[in-house]
C-alpha cells in the first residue's frame, strides 16, 4: 500500500500523522518500505511481533522440560 492508500483508510487521521506513524512502524521493523517509481509501498512484516509472542509464551509457562529435570534432580537425590 502507498501512504495515500493508508491515509484514505484512516480518514480521521491527518496525512502528516499517518506519515509519522509509518516512520515509527518502520523504525520498529514492523513495516517495510519499498520504492516503486516515485512512490513508496509499505508492507507489514509480522516477524518481530511473532518474536514478542514467542517470548511471551516462553515466559508465561515454565520451561516444562527444565521443570521436570529440576524435580528429578531433587527427588532422586
Amino acid at each position, binding site marked *: 500500500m502507498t501512504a495515500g492508500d493508508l491515509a484514505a483508510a484512516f480518514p480521521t487521521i491527518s496525512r502528516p500523522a499517518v506519515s509519522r506513524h509509518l516512520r515509527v512502524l518502520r523504525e520498529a521493523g514492523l513495516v517495510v518500505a519499498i520504492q516503486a517509481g516515485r512512490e513508496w509501498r509499505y508492507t507489514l512484516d509480522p516477524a518481530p511481533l511473532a518474536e*514478542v*509472542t*514467542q517470548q*511471551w*509464551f*516462553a*515466559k*508465561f*509457562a*515454565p*520451561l*516444562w*522440560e*527444565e*521443570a*521436570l*529435570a*529440576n*524435580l*528429578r*534432580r*531433587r*527427588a*532422586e537425590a
Partner: protein
Amino acid sequence: MTDISPFGIRRAAIIRATPERIWEEFTTHERMSAWYGTGHELTHYEPRVGGRVETTFGDVPNVARGRVLVYNPCRELTFEQRWIGPDWTGREWAAPAKVTILLTPVAGGTLVELFHHGYDLLGGDPAEYLSGFEGGWDTHHLDALAVLVAA
C-alpha cells in the same frame, strides 16, 4: 481426577523415586518454586484446595493467577492459571488455563506427567495457544504431517 482437555500440552518423565517422595516437592511454596519456578517466578503457592497460586515474569508485573482445584497427595495436583489483563493479542481470557501434574507408580519409579491444558476455553484461537505453548519447534513434525495429509 481432572478431565485433561485435548487442547493442551503434555510433558512426562519417569523419576526414580516413590510418589510419596516426589509429592514432598509440592508441599511448600519454597520447595515448589525450587523446581517449578523456571522461566518465570512462582510468587505465591498455597498447597491446599482453594489455595492461591501466582506466577509472575518480567519488569512490568505480568501475572497469572488461580486457585488449586485438586490437591490429592501422591496422586494429583491441579491449579488454574489465568492471565491477568489482556494477553499479547489484547484479549482478556474468558477462563483460566489449567496445570495438572499426575503421579503414577511404575516399575522402578514414578511416571510424572505435566499437562498445561484448557486452551479451548480461553476465548481465542486454541490452535494459536497450542503452537505457542509447544514452543514451536517440536510441532514441526506434526505441521509436516498436516501438509502431507492435506496434499
